[in-house]
């Protein structure tokens, strides 16, 4: 039987890799491999997944050094000489084995005011937003993020500056900045300005390179840089 040699991170921050042999199968995903190990070889292995089809964003891990959705990554695409190395997402504390602590990641969405602030009630008319306006186009280009954390884990600026809000939170802020129905656009700009915000980006473009949805958070961050600069010149920052 054709076997895959899989190194899996065990333990917390100071853990190490353990090696398991997993039978190869056609069209096998990395998530299939992890599930096989947990069900057949190592019941105590901790990992996170839900939908298995690339919608929920919970199964992201570091596969052979690169952050990926394990459910949408075929083994054949990433194995090196019949081997795989699977670790938790980088730039986040490790809870156990392959499970990273996402609190810091989502906490930064809050800091970037990543929630919609309504200005109308249910008794008002529907807002009519033309899909052709430049603002709506900018929001649409960035809105498909499902919060998997792949960009955050791939970002070196996050490693260098733990306060940095990161690509996903800034991308979210950019979609809301371009939403004309939102009532806190000026305040949000203040939240994302500065060294821990959009000005901290070093334009490595790792976020866009690794994003499974092919989004470009760097484009969103560049947009926020221009918007904050304009606001500062007008004395509104």
């Amino acid at each position, binding site marked *: 039987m054709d076997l895959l040699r899989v190194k899996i991170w065990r333990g917390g921050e100071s853990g190490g890799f353990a090696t398991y042999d997993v039978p190869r199968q056609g069209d096998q995903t990395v998530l299939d491999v992890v599930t096989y190990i947990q069900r057949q070889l190592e019941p105590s292995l901790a990992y996170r997944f839900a939908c298995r089809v690339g919608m929920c964003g919970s199964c992201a891990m570091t596969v052979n050094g690169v952050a990926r959705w394990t459910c949408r990554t075929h083994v054949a695409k990433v194995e090196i000489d019949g081997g795989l190395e699977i670790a938790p997402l980088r*730039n986040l504390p490790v809870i156990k084995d392959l499970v990273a602590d996402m609190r810091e990641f989502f906490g930064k969405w809050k800091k970037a005011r990543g929630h919609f602030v309504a200005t109308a009630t249910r008794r008002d008319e529907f807002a009519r937003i033309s899909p052709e306006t430049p603002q709506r186009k900018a929001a649409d280009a960035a809105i498909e993020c499902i919060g998997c954390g792949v960009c955050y884990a791939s970002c070196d600026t996050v490693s260098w500056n733990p306060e940095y809000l990161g690509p996903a939170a800034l991308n979210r802020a950019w979609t809301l900045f371009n939403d004309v129905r939102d009532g806190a656009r000026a305040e949000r700009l203040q939240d994302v300005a500065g060294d821990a915000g959009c000005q901290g980006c070093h334009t490595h473009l790792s976020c866009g*390179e690794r994003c499974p949805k092919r989004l470009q958070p760097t484009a969103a961050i560049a947009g926020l840089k221009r918007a904050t600069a304009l606001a500062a010149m007008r004395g509104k920052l």
Partner: protein
Amino acid sequence: MRNDLRSRNHRCFWAFLVHRVSGVALSVFLPLHFWVLGQALEGAGRLESFLRWTDHPLVKLSEIGLVLLLAAHLSGGLRLLLLEFRPWPAAPRWQQGALALTAGVSAAFGLLFALNVL
């Protein structure tokens, strides 16, 4: 845990690295350059003897490297300005074309200078 080279190994990160390294190298070179120009104030003889030293083939070779660094930093800087100030069009991968262009411009400048020197 932090990322290693496997995660960083993509075109745009290499472009960042080239920009950073060429920037640091040029900032080391600049004070040296001004010091040499300053020699002219001390008398034509001292500058002349230094200029004679630069005729050495090894110095000429490193001059080609210097021109490459300058071209790479200039074109890479223009690419960054484009990324920062021009709203990106629908096709998000255009910056890789910009990368190829900056590499090409740098190589062309280096070659032109090399042909001029040799």
